[in-house]
């Protein structure tokens, strides 16, 4: 017997090794990034925390599982996330259909506006909901005037209702974008064929369209569910003192009580759920995924026809506006109203418009070293957002590629669910982990502003991957095989086939990364340089300072953030109109 020859130059072996090497190369940067800036810091915090547990690492888990209160927190976290996700889909799916399949005037403006809620920091959303639904919000004031009531009739704030409304407000855009984008490229001829063969409209939808849409719907649901599941600010500020999610409890155990072992156990529990939910999604989506004929929009969209279609579309648009825009409009309206109540008059605003709050933004009245004019804060926010987009795409593209092309390999199947973990990790834990892990030269980054885009990228990365993978997977392998058979080397296949097809996915991914960075508050606040506040930080400073002039300025700056965000989204819509990556 002759031993097999294993020379490196052997062509057969090289051909066998090449895919594995390519896969390793694709994973290298994303995994190195996650290892250094996610697993290492979090692991350091967890090991320190458990080492402080008097009864060993199992003790805090036991105390959590035997506590009725903690079990209630876990149950509530699940329940509110499921309810919020269901309602988000209920509003988002019809909206996605409208935006994907129909052409009407003002559509790009509507699309851009629906993204604005996603960017708003929680404190702004709380102020917006209070301006609309609070005891002296526009709605209550109107109802009190109309029916001559002495007390505000609506008590929405500090309840599960407010939490769910805010989640729908925040996350509907995820459904609109993830599902809508996929839908707008779905070949309509399949449905048409079914109808030619005698299927009714409902039957066509449930038997043909819905199954084809399922990968996108599942991806959107996963992201929405995880966002709701790990909700912190919304629950704290709008849910009132009786409601707590796991994330709220982690914060309370860490910051207020400094009970690190219990906080660590809660963190592990939340991560386990995140992992479990993601694994479930991946099993589902593997079954749902099928290669498709994707079509350019010109073939899938048509104008509204007939009275009924127009009426339904009108109703859908009205619903989107009510749920997603009315709080923002209420806030914008309040930012130009006088805010100080007239002496002795309960429940009324002194009538009158004012631009005082906007003017005041340009004045460094307190001569503070940390005064930042709005333009400067917007500049800082844009710098961080741009860096986040670059970093998240640079890391997300190869990862998504590996998952889409080599999704069946063991490595990919193991790594895939792990990529979602940062979404299930609280900013507080990560911030403390950074302190523990990144404090030794040559890598003392603890005080560096670089941590801000790094932290934003951790949140944006799962979004980028999840938006890209369905787009990459839906490319039919035959196209690539054909190109390869015609003699195109792998890189050329990537450049000529995959890249153009994936352009639209990249655009959606970049949009999410941009929006996440623009609105992020928690991680930013942990490593802020007060001389260079982002817009959310500057807003927070105003809203937490006494006096109505400060409050008004907070509202004014929030309105400016909305305007910047709308303008940014419209800019991206313009890019879409140029049909980047269309085919």
């Amino acid at each position: 017997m002759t031993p097999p020859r294993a020379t490196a130059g052997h062509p057969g072996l090289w051909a066998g090794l090449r895919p594995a090497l390519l896969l390793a190369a694709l994973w290298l940067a994303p995994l190195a990034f996650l290892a250094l800036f996610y697993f290492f810091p979090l692991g350091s915090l967890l090991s320190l925390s458990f080492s402080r547990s008097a009864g060993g690492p199992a003790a805090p888990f036991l105390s959590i599982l035997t506590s009725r209160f903690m079990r209630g927190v876990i149950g509530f976290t699940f329940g509110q996330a499921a309810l919020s996700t269901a309602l988000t889909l209920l509003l988002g799916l019809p909206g996605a259909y409208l935006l994907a399949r129909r052409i009407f005037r003002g559509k790009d403006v509507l699309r851009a506006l629906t993204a604005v809620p996603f960017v708003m920091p929680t404190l702004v959303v709380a102020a917006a909901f209070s301006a609309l639904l609070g005891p002296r919000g526009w709605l209550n004031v109107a109802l009190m005037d109309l029916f001559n009531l002495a007390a505000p009739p609506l008590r929405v704030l500090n309840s599960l209702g407010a939490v769910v409304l805010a989640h729908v407000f925040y996350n509907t855009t995820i459904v609109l974008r993830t599902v809508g984008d996929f839908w707008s490229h779905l070949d309509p001829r399949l449905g048409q064929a079914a109808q030619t063969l005698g299927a009714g409209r409902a039957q066509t939808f449930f038997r043909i369209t819905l199954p084809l849409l399922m990968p996108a719907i599942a991806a959107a649901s996963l992201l929405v569910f995880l966002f709701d599941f790990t909700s912190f600010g919304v629950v704290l500020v709008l849910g009132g003192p009786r409601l707590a999610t796991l994330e709220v409890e982690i914060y309370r155990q860490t910051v207020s009580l400094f009970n690190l072992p219990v906080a660590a156990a809660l963190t592990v529990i939340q991560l386990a759920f995140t992992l479990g939910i993601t694994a479930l999604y991946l099993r589902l989506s593997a079954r749902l995924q099928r290669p498709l004929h994707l079509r350019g929009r010109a073939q899938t969209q048509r104008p509204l026809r007939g009275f009924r279609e127009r009426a339904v579309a009108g109703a859908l648009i009205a619903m989107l506006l009510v749920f997603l825009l009315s709080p923002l409009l209420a806030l914008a309206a309040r930012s130009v109203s006088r805010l100080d109540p007239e002496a002795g008059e309960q429940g009324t605003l002194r009538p009158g418009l004012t631009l005082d709050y906007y003017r005041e933004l340009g004045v460094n009245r307190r001569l503070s070293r940390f005064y930042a004019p709005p333009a400067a804060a917007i500049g800082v926010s844009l710098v961080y957002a741009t860096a986040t987009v670059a970093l998240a795409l640079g890391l997300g593209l190869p990862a998504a590629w590996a998952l889409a092309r080599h999704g069946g390999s063991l490595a990919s199947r193991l790594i895939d669910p792990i990529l979602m973990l940062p979404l299930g990790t609280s900013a507080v834990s990560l911030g403390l982990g950074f302190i523990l892990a990144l404090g030794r030269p040559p890598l003392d980054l603890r005080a560096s502003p670089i941590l801000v885009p790094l932290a934003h990228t951790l949140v944006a990365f799962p979004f980028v991957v999840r938006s890209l993978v369905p787009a990459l997977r839906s490319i039919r392998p035959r196209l690539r095989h054909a190109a390869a058979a015609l003699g195109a080397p792998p890189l050329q296949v990537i450049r000529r086939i995959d890249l153009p097809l994936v352009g639209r996915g990249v655009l959606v991914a970049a949009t999410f990364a941009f929006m996440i960075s623009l609105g992020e508050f928690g991680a930013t606040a942990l490593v802020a340089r007060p001389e260079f506040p982002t817009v959310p930080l500057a807003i927070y400073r105003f809203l937490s300072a006494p006096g109505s002039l400060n409050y008004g300025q907070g509202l004014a700056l929030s309105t400016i953030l909305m305007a910047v965000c709308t303008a940014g989204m419209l800019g991206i819509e313009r890019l879409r109109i140029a049909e980047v990556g269309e085919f």
Partner: protein
Amino acid sequence: MSRRLLTLIPLFGSVLASCGPRGPRALTVMTHDSFAVSETVAAAFEAENDVTLRFLASGDAGEAVNKAVLAAGNPLADVFYGLDSTFLSRALEAGIFEAYESPLLGQIPDSFELDPGHHALPVDYGDVCLNYDRAYFADRGLEPPGSLEDLLRPEYRSLLVVENPAASSPGLAFLLATVGHFGEDGYLDFWEGLRENDVLVVNDWEAAYRTEFSGSSGGGPRPIVVSYGSSPPFEVMFSPEPLEEAPTAAVVSDGSCFRQIEFVGILRGTENRELAEAWVDFMLSVPFQEDLPLQMYVFPVNSEAGLDEIFARYLAIPEHPAFVSPEAIAANRETWIEAWTETVLR
């Protein structure tokens, strides 16, 4: 698009450049995110000591303390400012500070010095007190509340909004005021009574003061709120229109307020001990102390610092705030909050 992106590069560069020291020497001061200082005051210190100040905002007061505790011995900064009396024990037990007996402590009344070892030096204070909407009570010919006990009276039913002590710093301070005033045996009975009198609990100061309280910009339905003793003068100062009278007033009777004191300390392991001492002295000196009220809405502990005329007119300072020692707070914080939650919320 690409040209617009290009214009951002210098901006990014400037953010990056600011990581490194700008002057010949740098002093890093770690704070909570409410920290602020006048440009002239900070610049005076920099010129005098030939140093560049670098400030590091590290989240809210609790988050900042935790970060300092976890970095004990290998500090992120030279000085930490913003430790308050409710977190004092956590920081001292972790040994994050080097002791420093500043000569300026002589100008500060003993009542502010909660750390006899001089690791944490008092800088400023603020009183958490009941505030009420003056117009509401004047219009109805109703006497405003004068003490904590008054809140239990039937005519004040459904008038009070407070913050959740588990989530809010003024909320915790007010709970401590009731512990200090009624004692460990009596505070829960008081809260039981408040619950029967329909107290409203919200999670944070913004929701209580801006949304539910009737006397400020929120204009909500409740005319009594837990806020700061300094809120009335700031309502006057930060009103879009000049006001003759403050729209609100604070209740400062004996035992009804809780005094939050904020401390500064030199972080153990600093390589700039000498400069750090200079900065601590500077924070306790008159120019910085007089800058405090308008920058951070808190008040000087240095008895030689003067206050703006507006404060003399509108600020009420409690002579005998309720007191609970930092050690007792550290030992019982969780128990008190849990018992409170059980009594008021469940």
